[in-house]
């Protein structure tokens, strides 16, 4: 891609201690040329490992690999605008919500802003405590709403919880629209957590950087000629196929290229440059995703 499109923003939510900060650091380590901008919520400590910090001034902390970090303080909108104006511009913004914020509400604001594109809401759940929190007298409804507003739930600290299967089944009911992946120490592949691939970091080849021992699988799909991108996006986001992420470009039946992007059940279709290469990458959990069935559904589209 040549022209800088809208700046993608991923909202990272979840209650205190669920692993938001650990996830942010894990993503920074995987950035591999991608310039990530981290926005810290109103009560947050600087969430970055000291080893990643290169320099700090009053508003912004420079991190290794061209990444930056700032606190969004009083004003989300102006802080985002400041990041957007940085030269070089970041490739992706990770917005760490406070422990009591609703990721859906923040996502809603991001979706209204010119020059930004909501990439999705990722919510962490602490496998050991999430069910207890969800029934806490004060926090219960907040935690349940946070989970319900997630596109992706990272069920974290699975190594510490003896009953992760039960928790996962419970989450399936508490947040029926979210796709879920299990993590320990919030380690999740950056190409699942962040959907927007940029020219700088090549899209993962099918079966490429994904560690099968962790249970992820990726497949390349050829978008069928003559299909409407919106119809195709809807199929890719359909819970029946269990995809975590899909992304790519296709030719519109009426001419011009479209970019398709899904995270869980959320999908977006936008205009893409004429020279964007047609093709789709789909990522899911090996155990959950039937790529053959998906291919059939796509062909029928």
């Amino acid at each position, binding site marked *: 891609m040549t022209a800088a499109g809208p700046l993608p923003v991923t909202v990272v939510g979840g*209650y*205190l201690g669920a692993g938001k900060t650990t996830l942010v650091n894990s993503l920074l380590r995987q950035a591999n040329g991608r310039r990530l901008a981290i926005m810290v919520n*109103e*009560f*947050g*400590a600087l969430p970055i490992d000291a080893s990643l910090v290169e320099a700090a001034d009053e508003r912004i902390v420079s991190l290794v690999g061209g990444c930056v970090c700032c*606190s969004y*303080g*009083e*004003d*989300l*909108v*102006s802080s985002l*605008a400041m990041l957007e104006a940085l030269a070089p511009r970041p490739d992706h913004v990770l917005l760490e919500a*406070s*422990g*009591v914020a*609703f990721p859906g*509400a*923040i996502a*809603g*604001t991001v*979706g*209204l*802003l*010119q020059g930004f594109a909501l990439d999705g809401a990722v919510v962490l759940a602490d496998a050991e405590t999430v069910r207890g929190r969800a029934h806490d007298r*004060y*926090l219960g*409804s*907040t935690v349940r709403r946070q989970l319900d507003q997630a596109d992706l739930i990272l069920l974290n600290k699975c190594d510490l919880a003896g009953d992760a299967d039960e928790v996962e089944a419970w989450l399936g009911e508490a947040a029926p629209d979210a796709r879920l992946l299990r993590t320990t120490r919030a380690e999740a592949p950056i190409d699942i957590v962040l959907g927007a691939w940029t020219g700088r970091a090549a899209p993962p080849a099918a079966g490429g950087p994904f560690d099968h021992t962790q249970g992820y699988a990726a497949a390349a799909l050829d978008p069928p000629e003559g299909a409407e991108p919106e119809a195709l996006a809807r199929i890719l986001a359909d819970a029946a196929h269990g995809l975590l992420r899909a992304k790519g470009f296709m030719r519109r039946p009426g001419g011009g290229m479209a970019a398709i992007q899904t995270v869980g059940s959320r999908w977006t279709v936008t205009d893409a440059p004429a020279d964007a290469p047609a093709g789709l990458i789909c990522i899911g959990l090996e155990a959950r995703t039937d790529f053959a069935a998906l291919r059939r559904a796509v062909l029928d589209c």
Partner: protein
Amino acid sequence: MTATIYPAARIITMNPARPHATHVAVREGRILGAGTLEELAGWGDYRLDGRFADKVLMPGLVEGHSHVMEGSLWAYVYCGFFDRMDPEGRVWAGLKSIDAVVERLAEAAGALEDPAAPLAGWSLDAIYYGGRRVNRHDLDRVSEERAVGVLNASGHILNVNTRALELAGLLRTGVNHPGIPLGADGLPTGEMKGPDAMAPLGVHTGFDRDLLACDEPGLRRFARLCVRTGVTTAADLANLLPEDAVEMMLRVTGEPDYPARIVSLRRFYGLTPEELIDRALELRGRSRDRLRLGIIKVVADGSIQGFSARLRWPGYYNGAPEGLWYVPPEHLLEIYERALAAGLRVHTHTNGDEATDLALDCMESALRKHPAPDHRFTLQHCQLADAAQFRRIRALGLCVNLFPNHHFYWGDQHYAVTVGPERAERMNACATALREGVPLAIHSDAPVTPLGPLFTAWCAVNRRTASGRTLGEHERIGTADALRTITLGAAYTLGLDGEVGSIETGKRADFAVLEDDPETVGGERLKDVRVWGTVQGGRIFRAADLGT
């Protein structure tokens, strides 16, 4: 050193040992004593100053919860339904129709030279316009070329015109947001509801993003309002107090003619609890007489009229979902523990009764860890507390600062929509608080409602709504209690009751100078008591003489 003795028509001292006096003696900005001329002459040399001979003196009024931002907002166009006095003493007539709002805004727009400059108004109260919503076409009549934005009185809605939507890139179909209603044409109507929907429009409509951090002209205007309302000490309840603001506030309040004492609280925002405590300790050390720093403010939940307050079962009368937490409970507890250990005070905004429960649970647990006599933690608003909560508040040694102005401005809505009749009648239960022995203050939360402790006292005494309903006869308090609450009561919550709040030997010479006697006009007319000005630290400020 020569003292000045002021005879007055009447002096209301709030000192129960001698509640009234004919003279007050002042030296070095402090009160030598209140009594008869003969008694005061015993202090030695004096000069008799008869300028207050026909006035009534009260202790300088203390506003326990306002925001210096009230002064800043007057830079924008006042669009409220009710008459309101500005810092220069001009009373802006309340606007009784949408046409009147448009007319006032259009007049202000006509006075702007730059055709592209945005125009901002505030305090619109659409609920009084017969159910008709204000939309962008109304504000297009103000201007089609410049962006126009008007903030709602509750602070939860921003009305904008078509140009503002255009600038924000929102004049399009397909906007899908719960806070942005769409018209029949599929385009936003121009009503932006809630902070999430308002945020993208703020910069385009001229609302400075740092409105909550105070600006210098605003701080000066705020003080003029204080003089006009008899206030000599005012709490500025939720400042972020960045370093440049602190320096500016120290400089301005330190000027020899700055007429008010500002108690500015550092709001918990943008820092971790640990950093907050460090910052509050540092700020406390920089306090001066007219700028007191070091108290912490934490906001636990939202507002009742915005449906973001955390209510206990059964929740909102109209079925709106339970509100929002603005602080994680762990942080609240951590702040309480650290503050008690450090000897700092915390004021916590709790509107809903569930938020009050959380604050009480945290307090109980923190006090067990760090027992602290006289901690003077205060619950701010605490509007829905019931009798059992007031008993717990008393047992934990907390103070409350209730919000009776709500009865007048939103009482009818609370009755009909937000909390329903029964809880509306017990909201801001001043009588219960006093009966249970809870230290009580009452406040305006200016700019949410106008600064004016005598009006606030009137609200607590009468509990009258805008439509004339008496909202909870049982919770009315007497005039004497109300007057004590807007002086000593509020001073106590700020830890200043040893310095101000009564006219007694040794205290600051802070007086409200009144044309009428609030003790004898009757509770019905408290709000009509005329204010001549103030004496602050012995310095005399006549409202009519205030420069601009």
